[in-house]
């Protein structure tokens, strides 16, 4: 909760409200499921809040949701909510159990009548350098570990609380309930090592169905894992080849792939006449796609190319060939020179930092984009 949606380039207030509420709706969906299925307990493996954006409202709503769930809720904090903001002023209900900064075992339901050992640990700093799993060990009873960590096999970014999958195999833990990676992933079974992912995607990178796992344990063995969807707003990756396509056929194919109402990350590949329209009449084209699919285009990547073969055209000696060759010059520039070449005007100094913040791939893709677009312009038949 709290982390705002990212990379939606067209904003309207109504949609914005839905986006903000969708994270809470996802939490409600988890609680609804827990109540309907009469679960024993719920596990939250960290990054429930984003401390940088956290609001009292989100913590209040979280506390209310836990209260509504009624069952015990095990909580381990992660790198985003390690600060435990608002903890003093808005307290969680008694059924919430928050793991401290060193691993502890809080058996369920209690030591005397326990049916499972639940061992957990929370982050103490944003960039937790410890291998938190080292402090965790299970028992002869069914043992669950709750930890927010970055397993070597699945990390996609910076490492937080690094851990090794191989070391998890010998800890007498039957189920590792992990947090940190937003993409759903069952890394290992018996013992189970599971990232359920987040409950609501918030950017084009977090595409696909989002939700949680309903885990059934019988006689000390994980019997079933049911994934249930909680995210109301779906982010979808759609890749479309334009080669040989007409506008109608292209729109129809996108419609078939896109789920109505979802946010699309639309990526075009191939070569064809439509490349020019996509590039030179981008807004018109986006509008057409959105009308046809009933989706919102959150991101449009034009990796397609013109019908003409740029390499062949390079040797013709005309102006277009000169443009193709000039692209090489920019593509070979170092970052600073390239950015300076882009930001040559006085006004552009105010946006220079945006280019400076771009990754190399993104920055240099602009060169290719410019080259292809320019070729499209120069070869456009305007008659």
């Amino acid at each position, binding site marked *: 909760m709290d982390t*705002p949606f*990212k990379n939606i380039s067209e*904003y309207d207030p109504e949609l914005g*409200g839905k986006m903000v509420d969708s994270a809470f709706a996802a939490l409600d969906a988890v609680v609804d499921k827990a109540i309907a299925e009469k679960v024993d307990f719920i596990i939250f493996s960290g990054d429930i809040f984003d401390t940088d954006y956290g609001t*009292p409202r989100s913590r209040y709503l979280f506390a209310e949701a836990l209260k509504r769930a009624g069952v015990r809720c095990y909580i381990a904090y992660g790198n985003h909510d390690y600060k435990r903001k608002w903890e003093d002023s808005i307290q969680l209900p008694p059924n919430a159990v928050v793991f401290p900064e060193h691993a502890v075992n809080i058996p369920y339901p209690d030591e005397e009548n326990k049916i499972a050992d639940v061992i957990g640990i929370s982050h103490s700093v944003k960039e937790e350098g410890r291998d938190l799993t080292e402090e965790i060990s299970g028992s002869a009873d069914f043992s669950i570990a709750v930890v927010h960590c970055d397993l070597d096999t699945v990390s996609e970014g910076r490492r937080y609380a690094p851990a090794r999958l191989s070391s998890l195999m010998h800890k007498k833990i039957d189920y590792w309930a992990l947090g940190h990676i937003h993409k759903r992933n069952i890394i290992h079974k018996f013992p189970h090592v599971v990232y359920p992912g987040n409950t609501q995607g918030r950017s084009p990178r977090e595409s696909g169905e989002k939700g949680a796992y309903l885990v059934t344990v019988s006689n000390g063995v994980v019997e079933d894992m049911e994934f249930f969807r909680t995210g109301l707003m779906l982010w979808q990756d759609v890749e479309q080849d334009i080669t040989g396509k007409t506008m109608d056929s292209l729109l129809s194919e996108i419609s078939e792939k896109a789920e109505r109402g979802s946010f699309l990350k639309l990526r075009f590949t191939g070569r064809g006449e439509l490349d020019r329209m996509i590039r030179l009449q*981008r807004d018109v084209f986006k509008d057409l796609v959105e009308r046809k699919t009933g989706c919102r285009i959150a991101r449009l990547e034009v990796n397609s190319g013109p019908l003409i073969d740029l390499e062949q055209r390079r040797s013709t000696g005309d102006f277009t*060939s*000169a443009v193709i*060759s000039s692209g090489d010059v920019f593509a070979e520039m170092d970052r600073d020179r390239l950015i300076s070449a882009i930001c040559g005007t006085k006004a552009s100094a105010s946006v220079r930092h945006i*280019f400076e913040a771009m990754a190399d791939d993104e920055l240099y893709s602009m060169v290719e984009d410019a080259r292809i677009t320019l070729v499209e312009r120069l070869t456009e038949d305007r008659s």
Partner: protein
Amino acid sequence: MRIRSIRIGSFGKYREWSMTDIPEGLTLITGDNESGKTTLMEFMRSTMFPTSRRSYPVPAKTDSGSMEIETESGERMTLIREQRKVHEISGKKLPDETFAMDSDTYRSIFAMDLADLTDANAISSERIRNRFLTIPGGEKVPQVIKDVGSSKTALMNEDRITERNPIGSLQTSLTELDRKIADARERDSEYDAYAKETEAVKAELSRLVKMQDIIDKDRERRNGILAQASNLERLRSMESRRVGLEYAADLSDATQNRYGVIMHRMSVLNGAMEDHGDIELMDGDFWNGLRELQSDLRAFIREYEQMTDRREQLKDSIAEDEEYIEESRISAELSSPEKRMEILERSKNTGMPYVSLILLIAGLGLAAASFYFERLLLVAGAVLAIIGVYGLIKSKMDKKFERWMESQGYPSLKRDRVPSFLMKLEMVYEASRRITNSRKDIEHISETIDSMNTRVSQALDYLGMEIDQKDPMVSALDIISKEVEAEEERIRRHDKLNEMTEEFETLADELESMVSVYGGMGGFEKACSDRSELLGLDREIRTARESLMSATGLTPDEMDAALDEDVDDSIDMKDEISELNKTLGELGEKMDRTLRDGDLGKLQTERNAKWAELVEKVKEWGTLSLEESMIDLSCSDLYSKMQPSVIETANRYLGMMTNGRYSLDPDPRLEEIVIKDSVQHKTSRQWSSGLGDQVYLSIKMAVAKEMGSERLPMILDDILVRFDQDRRRGACAAILDFAKDQQVFLFSCDSTVENAFPSGTVLNKVRL
């Protein structure tokens, strides 16, 4: 193509005028102002390329004439003009169709007066530029540049950020959103402060409420105390009264009870002693003797009764035993132990042991013999014989005993009944012996009774009592017992009287001791009364105290102190409590508002969206910027290596006219014509009128070289008027150069213009 002849029937001021055998190369036509130079030029160009735009000279119905032209292939055409219409005499196509040239282009490139020369539109037209002034593919560059530039500008102003453009607008929005987010965060961040403040206010409120509670209770208590003031006064009055009674406090109930008991007891004793009067007792010795006698009599009577009972029993026993002996018909002498022993011996002494031994031996002998003879028969016969012998022997012995018994005086008795008979004899013997002993006892008892009677009689005599002689001892005992009882009663009463007297005296002493403390019985009884009052007063005081304590929670002393206290009724916390409650409500409202407030999330999402949009727009702008840069680089790169031939030719002409100072900037990105020297570039706005004429003339001549399917004649009407001498010479040299392979008609009002041509130049000169 070249013009071979011109014939004017009527056109402007011309009437029936002609010029024939016009040579190739340069024809210089001079004439004064209004000599008809422009009219002639107009006739020539509007006849070759007719147009409706002509305004000079004024069209007339008489306009007519003809021109003979010859194509480069040698074909001749005669163009017949009637008013504006032109036709070829033999019906051939007119030059505009033949040479793919429209009249406007011809008039702006080939046949020009000074105004036409300086008309830049012709050479700026897309068609001219694309065809003559750019390299292949570069013709779209200006438009692309324009498109890219306008797109860039639409996104972000080149010079300064303004809100009219999306990037500027987004930056402004982001700044505004950042401010709103900061405000929202500030509101959120205040939540902790609100929570802490709420806790502090609650604590303060709790403290004040407690204080107010104390104040309220104190007031309530004080009111209660005041309400109990009269009761307190009554209590104090009772306590004062109690002081006067307190001396009786030590007088215990037990003492008082004891006093009552003593008084009552003494009264009773007094009455009882009076009732007893005087009592006279027996002499002590007499009394003792009497009691001893009574005791003896009782013992005598008990013993007498026992002996008489015993004597009777003995008599009964004797009678019973005698009756038994008589019934047994055996005298006592025959039952003596010696006699019984003899009978027993007699009954046993019959020789039977010898007989039995003989019989045993005989039996054993027979048994042994039976082993050697007829065993069974022999044994049977022997047994029968033995039985017979035994029977005979036994019968003889029984008879002998019976006879002895009879001889002794005993009844006849069989030997087997001896034991029971002996027992009977023993019983007879015992009865006889008991009779003897009982008679002795009776005799002794009778003697003792007689002795006792004697003793009693003697005692009574001694006492002088008359007794019933029939039963003297009983009678005596009765008399004596009555006397003893009477004396005992007297003794008892005497003892009692003594006892009462003693008790009375003791009680009197105790009473005296008791009342003396209080000054006698009167004082004691007053003390009793006072004590009773004291106790009642104590109860009342206790009740009053309890009542006061219950009502006020204070002891009477505390009440006194409380009543004496100076109380400040102005102390009150209610206003402060009300204010704090209000603050608490406001804080709660603020906290609730913060909890309900989802603005931050929306603002952040909106900011992210705006940021993403800004990044996208900036990327779009950056891509456009790169497109511009690529075009720049391409142009710079391309035109540094190659130029269109027209540009090269024009530069040559311009160089001739400006003595090599200026050349054209061939960059197709330029929307207007720019020249450059070694120092600077100059746009048309920086040209002098003469320089402009030279630039346009150079370009148009160069274009005229390339344009059309044939090299069309160039007609220049007074275009050198703004040239200085040097430039004019340069221009003339350029025109002469042009005219090497293309016909030129140069009109001039200046007759000296021919001097501007290089010396030795052969000119076809015409003077109008």
